[in-house]
């Protein structure tokens, strides 16, 4: 059920600010694609254009094409709400619903999709929590608030919530940046496991992480403050980290700037 994403000529704006310029790339299904680049280079913005979350910010808009297999996400007939049910997202800071139990957090998306039967909900909730490597830690306290878990557990809960609705693509916006190394490792293991089923895109500031978890890596950069972010290159991760085509990529990876 994983799908290929093909982006062509994509621009994104915040009001009058041109945030990213003319991005084209192909994201392969059942693989992990990492976005790296300095702060403000537009990689998070670009990620959010892939499930039409960019436009929920007042004044924000997008030009260009994002094809999910053979459907254009920005076609006028497409409902952004439907897009987000197919393209799931995990955020930088764990954001479980604070007033809901662990169970209800995972079931939230299912209920939106009209799943009401308790037995079916139970089954999918367990499946999703197991898929997120969290089941063993929480199975005895499913009724407790999700906000009571540790940061790493909360992030896995958010992943469980996202995979419960069986999306075709999973977007992760620096999912480990608020976590300690052990929780980070748990999430990275999980990403390795999830890629057999999903198309995964991950934004990260941690280059070791990109090298560890991703199959392909895209490097974004900006020419200067106020300039739009651009895609510099995208290639197999091993190539990007050993022998990149562009000088800027090499400079960034070897720590010469950024």
């Amino acid at each position, binding site marked *: 059920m994983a799908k290929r994403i093909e982006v062509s000529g994509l621009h994104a704006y915040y009001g009058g600010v041109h945030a990213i310029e003319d991005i084209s790339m192909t994201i392969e299904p059942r693989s992990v694609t990492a976005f790296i680049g300095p702060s403000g280079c537009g990689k998070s913005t670009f990620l959010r254009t892939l499930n039409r*979350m960019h436009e929920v910010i007042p004044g924000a808009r997008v030009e260009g094409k994002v094809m999910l297999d053979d459907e254009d996400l920005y076609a006028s007939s497409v409902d952004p709400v439907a897009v987000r049910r197919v393209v799931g*997202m995990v955020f930088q800071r764990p954001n479980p*619903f604070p007033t809901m139990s662990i169970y209800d957090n995972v079931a939230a998306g299912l209920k939106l999709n009209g799943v009401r039967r308790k037995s079916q909900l139970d089954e999918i909730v367990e499946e999703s929590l197991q898929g997120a490597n969290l089941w063993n830690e929480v199975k005895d306290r499913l009724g407790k608030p999700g906000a009571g878990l540790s940061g790493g557990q909360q992030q896995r809960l958010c992943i469980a919530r996202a995979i419960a609705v069986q999306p075709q693509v999973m977007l992760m916006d620096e999912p480990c940046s608020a976590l300690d190394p052990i929780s980070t490792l748990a999430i990275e293991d999980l990403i390795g496991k999830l890629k057999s089923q999903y198309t995964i895109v991950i934004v990260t500031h941690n280059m070791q992480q990109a090298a560890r978890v991703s199959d392909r890596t895209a490097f974004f950069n900006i020419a200067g403050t106020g300039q739009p972010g651009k895609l510099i290159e995208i290639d197999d991760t091993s190539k990007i980290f050993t022998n990149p085509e562009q000088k800027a990529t090499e400079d960034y990876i070897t720590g010469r700037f950024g």
Partner: protein
Amino acid sequence: MTSETGVEATAGARHRGATSLRMSTGRAGDKIFVSAARGSGIVVLAIMAAIAVFLVWKAIPALQDNKANFLTAEEWNPNATEPRFGIAQLAFGTIVSSLLAMLIATPIAIGIALFISFYSPRRLASALGYVVDLLAAVPSIVYGLWGLAFLSKHMDGISTFLNDVLGWIPLFGGDSPGKNSIFTASVVLAIMILPIISSITREVFLQVPRANVEAALALGATRWETIRLAVLPYGRSGMIGASMLGLGRAMGETIAVAMVLTYVPGINIHLLENGGATFASNIANSFDEATATGRGALIASGLVLFAITLVINMVARAVVARRKEFV
């Protein structure tokens, strides 16, 4: 970004190092500010205490002369040679009209707040928010005039309709639905407390973490589903607190209610019929002609209102504060 803050931090440290260990001049300002703030706090408490003492002091002689039970009697004849008065009718009128006003106003106020916060275009939202807040600034005598001169004349239809359809419920029962009823007063009160409930609710909605809203949106929630998933559960205790603050305000409202209601002695459970009185409306209507005992009696009733409002406000604050726990 991290490197920038790092630079600032070292610069700050160097600056502090240079000023040695002597007490800086900022300390005097600190002391003045602390005593001014503490003084203001004490003044507030002192005023509250003084009001309470005054009310009790003035009320005691009248209460001693009272030949009826102050808490349970429905009659209000403190000016007679044998003064007989009790607060039962006033308490009933006050509590029922305010509760009804709260029930009418809260859903509308929450609807307004939701519309302003999540649905309306930004420019309309700020204009609308401003207009709603403006409602709070209209003097209550204007509401009273409007209630008396306009609303009560147009309440006939609604009152008769409610009486016909819901007459089997005692509150809407009775033989002769009228214009100057507790129900009409409640509608006027509802409009008066709408702005406070709406603006506090809006404040609560503004505090809903962006992250929760985005979490719901990213799951594929529509706007209404986002509100149900992320906004309403988060804002629930805030909304309860806001409506209770509105309730407290409705209880103390005087002139608008006094203008709308026509006094008929005795508790009348049929809210659509003319009559009823509240603590505040009774004080406004009878203070001028009251004897010394009569004034004492009114002050005693004011004391009861003071206590009820205090309790309601305390409960409301407690509910609003409780929200902080589960975030």
